[in-house]
């Protein structure tokens, strides 16, 4: 555990990617397989299930700190991170190193996970003893492991880079082995670093291939620049870009696994897809998009959100919100990984498979438009078709691991925009703690401003700092961490779609709102009205 604490510190104390990889390599080479597994687990952003509730932690913190509750809460609001607040209030940098001799695996399995089996009082005692004995770094780290993800500026890809260096294997092999469901134990780490034998774990998904946005700052890309960037139209496959849940469907040895892009297993949430997949041949893996679909058109995204929220959807839900899988790509045929083949070849095989598709599976349509100009004209229909724009994939491209710039592009349509007035501000978390970065915006309904969207900053750091000062100087009221501000500042917001909503006072909900720019040239009375928004419905 001491070594892992030191690794955490090393990762936290540098902004250099190379230094981070070097620190991880050094760690992986010097600890045993069990610790490699747990370190991989935590560093790649995975977390153990919640062992102690945040409310409990805050109560114990207040007791242990002997401070008034309001002061603890105010301090927490200023720090923005509970794990850190606890360590800052209760721990001390000067303490000895009580972790000597306890490995990461020992600590996690024999101390941390054991919390779940303890009664409330014993759990409180165990947590308090860490707070009262551990030096600052260790106390902070233990709190982090208890409360959520590590967030130390290391991505899954970066962890894989270090592991690949240790194992002397290509990074995509490691990334693939890190996908899906696995237990952080020695056997996993040994398999993770073992020579490539082509063996596949039954449920394991492939890393998703991702597209880069095709755009120009500022403004929209015209057809001639698209042509300049991508070359001949004939080299590219164009498809509609749907706004659903990207998913990977695995059919192996008579079993079906459906994975979301966030690597959650969602087979049970979509029983109609799982059932239909039984008709697919064994050794088939399809990359596609789950869409709530009715009368030949996708339903609003919120419908799909309701589906994902139901672990076991009932008959009514299944009837009200039917879901389909729109197949984009084929990754495995007859149990053979075909990701290295060209899109041209994979598409042919996908089209052949589509002839046996069940009803809830649809082949993603390849758009015929012969020229970029024709394609651009079709793209204009995106809103009517309820799609986000186009996907462009090079016909010669393989199915890449992650985002490989140049082969796959998303050519989205321009978002809607409105000018809205800032009403409330709230301090952010983590690196944005101490700064007001989360804002609520409103538009006019008669003489009244009604909130329509919350947006986290799309502003530059300098703008955030300036706005933060402004907010502090123009606060009207405080409600805990939220401040209402004088309704003077206007911002241009971009959003993808708008839908009616009974849950919002304004009666509308915006999809993916974000700040486009700070309109210092506009006064509040020049902001848009709710009527303007309703016309988009």
């Amino acid at each position: 555990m001491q070594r892992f604490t030191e690794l955490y510190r090393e990762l936290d104390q540098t902004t250099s990617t190379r230094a981070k990889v070097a620190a991880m390599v050094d760690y992986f080479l010097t600890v045993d397989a069990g610790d490699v597994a747990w370190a991989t687990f935590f560093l790649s952003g995975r977390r153990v299930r919640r062992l102690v509730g945040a409310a409990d932690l805050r109560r114990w913190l207040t007791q242990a700190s002997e401070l008034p509750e309001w002061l603890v809460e105010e301090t927490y609001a200023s720090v923005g991170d509970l794990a850190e607040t606890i360590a800052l209030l209760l721990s001390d940098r000067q303490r000895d190193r009580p972790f000597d001799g306890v490995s990461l695996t020992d600590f996690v399995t024999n101390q941390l996970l054991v919390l779940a089996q303890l009664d409330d009082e014993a759990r409180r005692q165990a947590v308090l003893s860490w707070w009262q004995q551990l030096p600052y770094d260790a106390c902070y780290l233990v709190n982090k492991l208890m409360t959520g993800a590590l967030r130390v500026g290391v991505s899954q890809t970066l962890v894989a880079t270090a592991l690949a260096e240790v194992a002397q294997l290509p990074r995509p092999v490691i990334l693939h082995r890190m996908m899906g469901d696995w237990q952080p134990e020695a056997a996993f780490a040994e398999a993770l670093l073992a020579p490539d034998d082509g063996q596949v774990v039954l449920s394991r998904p492939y890393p998703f291939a991702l597209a880069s946005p095709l755009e120009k700052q500022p403004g929209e890309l015209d057809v001639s620049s698209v042509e300049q960037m991508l070359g001949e139209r004939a080299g590219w496959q164009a498809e509609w870009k749907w706004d659903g849940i990207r998913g990977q469907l695995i059919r192996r040895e008579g079993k079906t696994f459906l994975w979301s892009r966030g690597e959650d297993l969602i087979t049970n949430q979509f029983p109609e897809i799982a059932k239909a997949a039984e008709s697919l041949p064994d050794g088939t893996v399809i990359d596609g998009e789950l869409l709530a679909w009715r009368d030949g058109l996708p339903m609003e995204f919120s419908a799909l959100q309701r589906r994902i929220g139901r672990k076991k959807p009932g008959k009514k839900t299944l009837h009200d919100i039917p879901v389909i899988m729109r197949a984009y790509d084929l990754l495995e045929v007859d149990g053979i990984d075909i990701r290295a083949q060209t899109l041209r070849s994979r598409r042919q095989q996908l089209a052949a498979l589509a002839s046996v598709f069940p009803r809830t599976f649809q082949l993603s349509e390849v758009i015929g438009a012969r020229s970029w100009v024709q394609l651009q004209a079709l793209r204009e229909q995106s809103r009517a078709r309820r799609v986000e724009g186009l996907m462009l994939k090079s016909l010669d491209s393989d199915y890449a691991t992650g985002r490989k710039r140049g082969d796959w592009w998303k050519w989205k349509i321009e978002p809607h925009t409105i000018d809205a007035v800032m009403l409330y501000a709230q301090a952010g978390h983590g690196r944005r703690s101490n700064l007001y970065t989360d804002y609520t915006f409103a538009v006019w309904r008669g003489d009244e401003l009604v909130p329509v969207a919350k947006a986290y900053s799309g502003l530059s750091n300098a703008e955030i700092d300036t706005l933060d000062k402004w907010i502090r100087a123009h606060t009207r009221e405080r409600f805990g961490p939220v401040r209402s501000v004088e309704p003077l500042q206007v911002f241009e917001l971009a959003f993808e779609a708008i839908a009616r909503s009974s849950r919002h006072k304004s009666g509308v909900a915006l999809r993916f709102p974000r700040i486009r720019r700070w309109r210092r040239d506009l006064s509040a009375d020049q902001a848009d009205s709710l009527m303007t928004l309703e016309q988009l419905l």
Partner: protein
Amino acid sequence: MRRSELALITHAHADHARRGADRYIAVRDSVPILRARLGNSVRIDAVDYGEQLELGDTRVSFHSAGHVLGSAQIRVQRGDDVWVASGDFKRDPDPTCAPFEVVPCDTFITEATFALPIYRWPPAAEVAREIHEWWQSNARQSRPSVLFCYSFGKAQRVLAELMALTSECVLVHGAVAKLTDLYREAGVQMLPTQTLDLRTRRDYAGELIIAPPGAAGSRWMRRFKSASTGFCSGWMQVRGNRRRRGYDRGFVLSDHADWPSLLRTIDEVGATRILTTHGHSDTLVRLLRERGVDAQALALSEPEDDDAALH
């Protein structure tokens, strides 16, 4: 700024020393710095710590605040009523300035920049050791170390604290050099420094460079390839503050009073009324009131020095 006949200066940070007065009174050690900032034409009268002045129907004296060179608390007595305006102050030892003096009073005006219980400063000698280890570790990798410090006070304190660990020369940004020279003239012992000459190209591998925070992220930084960056400030106690600014390292070193020092000082001066300024003023007021102390927040203009100015 409103014109006034007379200004009593606690210290020469710009939020505590402004243009617009006909006459200034300040502690002797701060006069050269004040001159550098306000110009040579203004009238500045120097006083020593503890010297008694009669101003109108009041008696005024200046007492050490331990904040920066020449910093003072100002005691004003009228009849039996004694007020002390502490300006900015700290209780931790600092080799570049005189230590804080406890001045008993009826009304105490205290800063509240770091008035939250998470702000507890580690000993400066230990922070200096961290800085030195960081510098040495970068040097072994042939990397420069760029340390951002407020150019008046913090930079000189770092240069003085590092003397216990090394006698190597430190490169300083022009803004830091100016203040460091004034400190040397006042007799403060510091590591030898050399002002960065940006016209000549050179290799900065292994060097420690001290610069004001304003230089971070600027074109000025580009010449220090592969540099590791650090920032010296009380705000570095909170990880998010460091991460947001993109510094590799944050060193917790402040010229302001931390939480325990604030409470201890308020206790020791024995005042029946506390007025608070800067930072978490409202928090300190609420806590003091809960403890039965008559406390109130004073609204003042924005702070200048970087410790105070994160917000």
